[in-house]
């Protein structure tokens, strides 16, 4: 892999070509991504897969209009051709001569201690088989184990007509164990992911064993699960995966693209109380190693810690370059894209609720009847109405202040603004969980987090009456 993806003087000439017809902004994003994945299923190592993807996306902005083209041809001719295609939207423009002078390159290394390329394939296979054996040894009822591993090294250079020239290297590694347990009540599933914006250093044998045992235990516990109740009940969310709720229920509505189109319940509400005073919500790209960590975003802007809601009061939204420019302010470091083939947009990084001062066990003890969600699954939100849905993958009844019977998987449904007001206890046991966020067809890695907390009421979509 060559050290420089594209030489700075070539990037300058491509930007000049892009700006040549009177554009207001131009950007070249050059990316080179290598990844490898392996999976084990039914005790067999399935295919190992390698993938390499290289190319550039050129974006040209004229007024409120964006032109975009991408190419896998990184020669100067290929890049210039993409620049002309992207600049086609500027054909009505003035045609003045632009001269872009790029700043000295700011380079960001990944800091991965054990880069994926340094780990032999045989060692990666060893991790898969280890997790398989540990999970299977948990109980005879574990009938199936699937283990997956993937790593990626993503290098990119972004240069724009404002002189920005930044290069970055992101290394992400992910490991996940899924188990199926069989019992009298049918089949149940358990799942544990491990993921970090790091090399293989965090995938220790201990971490792998714990994930394997955790996935197996989750499936086993659910074998005796009974149908979840239906209707409105208090819900205690265990620390970590509950952060998905805040990602869905309010994070998406705080993205400036939805705000500027008046397509969010939170538009025009900065300075207003929008949540219980126990709620301080932060989006933080600077959490080194977290799944949503980024040294710089995909527009060359350094990752930042942004407080969105402070003690219940809405303080700010999340911004990318384009949306910030429309408002005459700076990006908040939230411009992200799935790959060079996609336009950047406002995306979250690591979104979490700050810990409170209650005791996690006390919160459960003070809940006479409710549902304890040990692990949340995925979710979905309509940012315009704030209505959201998310699934549970490990949930229990709370009866008389004690966690009792496991519940079958079900969905919880609610409305973002309403739920934020119903946060009535937040504990100290903060933790995070990795996730994948999809928006307009683009997938990016995000982190979520919170401490154990309680919502005074939420609609549970079970089948028990």
């Amino acid at each position, binding site marked *: 892999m060559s050290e420089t993806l594209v030489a700075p003087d070539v990037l300058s000439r491509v930007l000049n070509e892009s700006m040549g017809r009177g554009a207001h902004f131009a950007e070249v994003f050059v990316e080179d991504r290598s990844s490898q994945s392996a999976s084990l299923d039914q005790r067999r190592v399935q295919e190992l897969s390698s993938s390499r993807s*290289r190319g550039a996306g050129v974006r040209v902005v004229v007024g409120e*209009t964006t032109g975009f*083209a991408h190419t896998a041809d990184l020669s100067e001719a290929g890049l210039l051709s993409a620049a002309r*295609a992207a600049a086609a939207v500027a054909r009505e423009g003035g045609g003045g001569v632009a001269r872009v002078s790029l700043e000295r390159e700011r380079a960001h290394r990944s800091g991965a201690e054990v880069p994926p390329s340094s780990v032999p394939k045989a060692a990666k296979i060893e991790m898969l088989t280890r997790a398989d054996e540990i999970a299977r040894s948990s109980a005879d009822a574990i009938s199936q184990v699937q283990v997956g591993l993937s790593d990626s090294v993503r290098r990119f250079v972004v240069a724009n007509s404002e002189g920005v020239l930044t290069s970055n290297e992101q290394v992400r590694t992910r490991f996940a164990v899924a188990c199926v347990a069989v019992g009298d009540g049918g089949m149940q599933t358990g799942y544990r992911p491990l993921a970090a914006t790091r090399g293989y250093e965090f995938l220790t044998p201990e971490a792998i064993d714990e994930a394997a045992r955790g996935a197996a235990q989750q499936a086993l516990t659910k074998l005796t699960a009974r149908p979840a109740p239906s209707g409105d009940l208090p819900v205690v969310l265990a620390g970590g995966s509950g952060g998905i709720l805040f990602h869905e229920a309010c994070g998406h509505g705080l993205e400036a693209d939805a705000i500027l189109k008046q397509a969010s319940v939170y538009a025009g509400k900065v300075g207003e109380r929008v949540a219980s005073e126990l709620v301080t919500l932060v989006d933080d790209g600077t959490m080194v190693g977290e799944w949503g960590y980024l040294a710089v975003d995909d527009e060359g802007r350094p990752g930042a810690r942004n407080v969105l809601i402070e003690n219940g009061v809405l303080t700010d939204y999340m911004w990318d370059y384009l949306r910030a420019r429309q408002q005459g302010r700076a990006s908040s470091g939230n411009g992200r894209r799935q790959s060079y083939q996609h336009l950047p947009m406002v995306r979250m990084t690591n979104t979490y609720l700050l810990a409170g001062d209650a005791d996690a066990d006390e919160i459960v003890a003070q809940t006479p009847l409710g549902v304890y969600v040990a692990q949340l699954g995925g979710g979905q939100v*309509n940012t315009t109405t704030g209505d959201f849905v998310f699934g549970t993958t490990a949930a229990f009844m709370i009866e008389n202040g004690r966690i009792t019977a496991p519940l079958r998987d079900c969905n919880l449904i609610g409305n973002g603004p309403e739920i934020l007001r119903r946060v009535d206890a937040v504990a100290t046991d903060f933790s995070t969980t990795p996730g994948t966020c999809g928006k307009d067809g683009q997938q990016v890695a995000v982190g979520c987090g919170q401490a154990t907390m309680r919502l005074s009421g939420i609609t549970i*979509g079970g089948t028990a*009456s």
Partner: protein
Amino acid sequence: MSELLEQARRLLERVADGEEMEVYLSRGAENEVQAYQGEIESLASSSSAEIGIRILVDGPQGARVGTAYAGSLDEEAIAEALANARDNARFATEDEFMAFARPDGVAAMAMDLVDAGVTTTPLGDKIALAIELEKMVRSGDPRIRQVESANYSDYLAEAAIATTTGIAAAHERSGAFLSVTAIASQGDEDQTGWGLSVGRAPGELSVEEAAADAIGRATRMLGAVKAPSTKGVAVFGPRTAATLWSIIGGALSGDAVVRGRSFFAGRLGESVASELVTLIDDPTDMRHYGASPYDAEGLASRRNELIVAGRLQQFVYDTVSARRAGAVSTGSAVRGGVSGSPSAGCRALQVLPGELDQDEILRRVGEGIYVESMTGVHSGVNPISGDFSVGITGLMVRDGVLAEPVREVTIASTLQRMLLDVLYVGADQEWLPGLAAGQTIAIDGVALSGS
């Protein structure tokens, strides 16, 4: 023979002794226009080419496969991918069922899935469609406060698969789409509605249809209230029914079944659904957006009858899952793009239409809920246990007609029960983009959770 297939076959010459090789090439061009406030918000025009290579090596206990992908077709990228695939094959576990597809004597149907209009229509006309769509939605109803997005997009794509085991398949397709999200307001309340129009070229699209769809869906949800918790009949329109059939289709994958990951496992020949349900997977039906002459391993597409009058008739298989199950491929290999490996899956589902229109079904149902949209389908449905719990918006059905809109409601049941509890299947079949076509259906015994 297509130029792309020629190229794939030339690459097969690089196979080494003792190996089998599969080359999957694809290339395409696409345009996307987003309109906002009468202007182009963004315009993207792009082309791409990709290659996926799989290398198979036989051993005493079976075959091992390694795969690799590259996002360009230059020589350096291809050489790197081939070397990686070859190296990766060393690390897989030998599997007696692992194999590449071989020609099975079924001839592929000739299908013309390209409409030249997708390339001959000037870009300016495509832009005009998106701008017109936005304008029509904005001015279509006084309650429409905003058009969040109004998009035109199209593609022309070509794929070729060749293997050293004798597979040589190539096909082309085009598509064009209009989609729009409208926001309707009444007092403090907002509701959204999504509309679309689909065709193989811009000339087949209807701005009016997409606009009316979005406006209707957004405005009729205004005034939505919470519903009481109850148990009863849920009526699904064509779009939401199509989502249900896609989920059911996932559980009919021979791969899921043979691995014991489907609630249909071991139930072949049994009655699993109401007699009203005949579910077929037929990619040779040109009306279906999933139509294609070949599957993702290059075998000819064929019509597969999965559930006939409620009886579970067969599963769908690709080459490997068929070998594992002691069956033969049903031409049902699917893969997640060029970088993915084949697995078994449904490709173009449809339920044979009944005789009733939606109004008549509502009249016969009398009391229940009409499901307008579902959310949380990926998190709330478990194809192994069959547990089903999703969030919906919809309208109550009272006295046989649609009544007040409701929101923040979940519906729950199990997929097993839902299939048996189908009360009516409509005649109003709609051909939708995605895995399944849909028509109105009514399902009993669904638990509704509201306030």
